[in-house]
């Protein structure tokens, strides 16, 4: 008798339905891969970027998905280091989501350089003063950690697990997982921060520039903090979505609420720091260079002041306040809604810290710079989504990711 590939005791959809789903996601993936090869062969002229907009959609996507992938390190931190063992019911999924986010970010980075064949110069000829070097090192190391965390999960596939060597490997890896998780947490603090540093150190760009602590601008800390705050929200939202799609409860609601509560407090403290930072920047840093706050916003629809209000109030303070109240958390609609807002807020933050920086003119006689991504950029930015969906589909079908699934779905 052959071992079934699907984990024991759980129910999965029909092969037909599954294949159909794969095909849809695969088509989107292929579109992205086509665009990817166009870009690699023809160069970055395939994008809508220009000399004013050297950083654009991709860098934003990188920053955003890494922030959202932050759920992995922060849940790891909570589970293994703080010792909230109840979170182990979601940690596997957090790792997979993190793995998807980070591998995607690396892929996009490999696209986003003019000379991909020389990409490795960043390691070989590294300039230790560059935030991007820091990002590259930490990101790759943490990706390696995530891979190591992911492997034992893969090995738990019933078929693979039957191979004695793999079985033992998986078991032993589980034993030392806390060590890797701790390493990951450490690396994450750095690269999340370095990503914040990327724009914060640009002292020629008063919209981005922040003073700071030692060699790190305040954005360094703000980025780490915000990723820790919102990453778990994203993990919860993806889990939730998975539940809705599979029509099954996978993780206990208390876990969601617990993560919501932690995120809420993190978000609130982040918002306090972020408001202080914004206030200091608007009142001291920018004026010292001759700018008022409103010089950084314009009346065109993309770069209006609404963006600041949306980021700080609607997608910052509001969800934070909801999440820290028990009533808010216990209402499923409010819980999900505020998590969505928080996720949007962090994406806006990463957006302005890249695109608004590029767009705002510095010489008074210059105009705002404009940028429109090409379909190739859009396709390659959607590519990771398709790839993520596929990986999740496979993982969910073949790996025992959710320890509580059997317990929560006794009927099957």
């Amino acid at each position, binding site marked *: 008798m052959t071992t079934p590939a699907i984990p024991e005791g759980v129910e999965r959809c029909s092969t037909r339905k599954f294949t159909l789903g794969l095909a849809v996601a695969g088509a989107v993936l292929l579109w992205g891969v086509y665009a990817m090869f166009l870009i690699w062969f023809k*160069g*970055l*002229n395939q994008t809508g*970027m*220009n*000399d*004013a*907009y*050297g*950083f654009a959609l991709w860098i934003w996507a990188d920053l955003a998905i890494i922030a959202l992938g932050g759920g992995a390190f922060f849940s790891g931190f909570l589970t293994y280091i703080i010792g909230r063992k109840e979170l182990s019911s979601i940690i596997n999924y957090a790792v997979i989501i993190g793995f998807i986010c980070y591998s995607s970010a690396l892929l996009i980075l490999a696209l*986003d*350089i*003019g*000379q*991909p064949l*020389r*990409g490795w*110069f*960043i390691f070989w*000829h*590294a*300039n230790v*003063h*560059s*935030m*991007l*070097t820091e990002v*590259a090192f930490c990101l790759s190391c943490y990706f390696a950690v995530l891979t190591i965390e992911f492997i034992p999960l893969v090995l738990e596939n019933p078929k693979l697990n039957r191979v004695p060597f793999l079985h033992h490997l998986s078991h032993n890896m589980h034993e030392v997982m806390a060590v890797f998780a701790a390493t990951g947490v450490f690396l994450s603090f750095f690269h999340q921060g370095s990503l914040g540093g*990327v*724009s914060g*150190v*640009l*002292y*020629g*760009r*008063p919209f981005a520039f922040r003073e700071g602590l030692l060699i790190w601008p305040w954005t360094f800390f703000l980025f780490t903090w915000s990723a820790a705050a919102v990453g778990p929200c994203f993990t919860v939202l993806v889990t939730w979505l998975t539940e809705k799609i599979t029509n099954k409860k996978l993780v206990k609601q208390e876990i969601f609420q617990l993560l919501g509560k932690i995120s809420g407090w993190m978000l609130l403290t982040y918002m306090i720091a972020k408001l202080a930072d914004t206030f200091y920047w608007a009142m001291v840093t920018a*004026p*010292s*260079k*001759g*700018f*008022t706050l409103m*010089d950084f916003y314009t009346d065109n629809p993309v770069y209006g002041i609404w963006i600041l209000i949306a980021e700080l109030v609607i997608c910052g303070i509001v969800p934070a306040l909801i999440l820290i109240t028990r009533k808010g958390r216990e209402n499923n609609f409010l819980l999900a809604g505020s998590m969505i807002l928080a996720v949007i807020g962090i994406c806006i933050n990463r957006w302005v810290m890249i695109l608004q*920086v*590029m767009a705002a003119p*510095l*010489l*008074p*006689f210059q105009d705002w*710079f404009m940028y429109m991504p090409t379909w190739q950029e859009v396709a390659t930015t959607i590519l990771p989504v398709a790839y993520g969906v596929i990986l999740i589909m496979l993982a969910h079908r073949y790996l025992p990711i959710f320890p509580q699934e059997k317990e929560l779905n006794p009927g099957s």
Partner: protein
Amino acid sequence: MAKKAQHTATKRYGMVIDLDKCTGCGACMVACYSENNVPFREDESDKMLSLNWIQVFKVDNQKPFPDTEVCYIPKPCMQCDGDHVGHPPCVSVCPAVATDYDQPTGIVSQISPRCFGCRYCMAACPYHARQFNWWDPVWPAEMKQYLNPDVSVRMRGVIEKCSFCYHRYQKARNKAYMEGRDEIPEDEYQTACAEACPVNAITFGDLLNDEHEVHKLSKGKNAFRLLERLNTNPKVYYTTTKDWVRRITDNYLENETPGDVEKARKAQKASH
């Protein structure tokens, strides 16, 4: 030999551009293309995709006819010294050390074979002095014939920018060395744009050397730099007698004047 003392090994090459003289003719741009093998394309009208190591802006005082005035502002790489010397905005961000600050001359280099095209330096430069090779360069027909062997041609996917015609410095330095001199006289190292400017609006030389004209000009009362308040410390200076030009070359709050801000900065510098 009291004179000898100021011939320090360290130079700070810089420029002073007289905006009252510049007629906007564009000879500096064309001379730079020709000297530095800057490629061109069929349509160059998207200025954010057009390689120009020096770009000449046309600005006006926004007053209605006939009180309108215009001024041209040529803008090469500012060769920033940075917020502390050797730390221009673009250099420390480069993850692969493909651009660097040359201590002996103060010139910010750009090494195309090292650059891998991440464009972080471009994001860091407030002057848009850095441009990217979005396309493979193409010289139609026999046009490759006119390429200057002293300046390597850049490939697709890397950043390029004004080098203060560094190859001319190397030539002048080699010549001086061969002739047993330590000093490069002012006229032996001139950039292609300064040389081509038909009205001599561009003066080039060592800002530290009081025998060089730029030394005096950069200290004149009408001298200033672009976006000085960002602390980028450019080595390209400008002069103008027009107040409105001063006001649109940096950012000022409503209640500030360029004069006051400059005074405050000088005072602060002195107190450090």
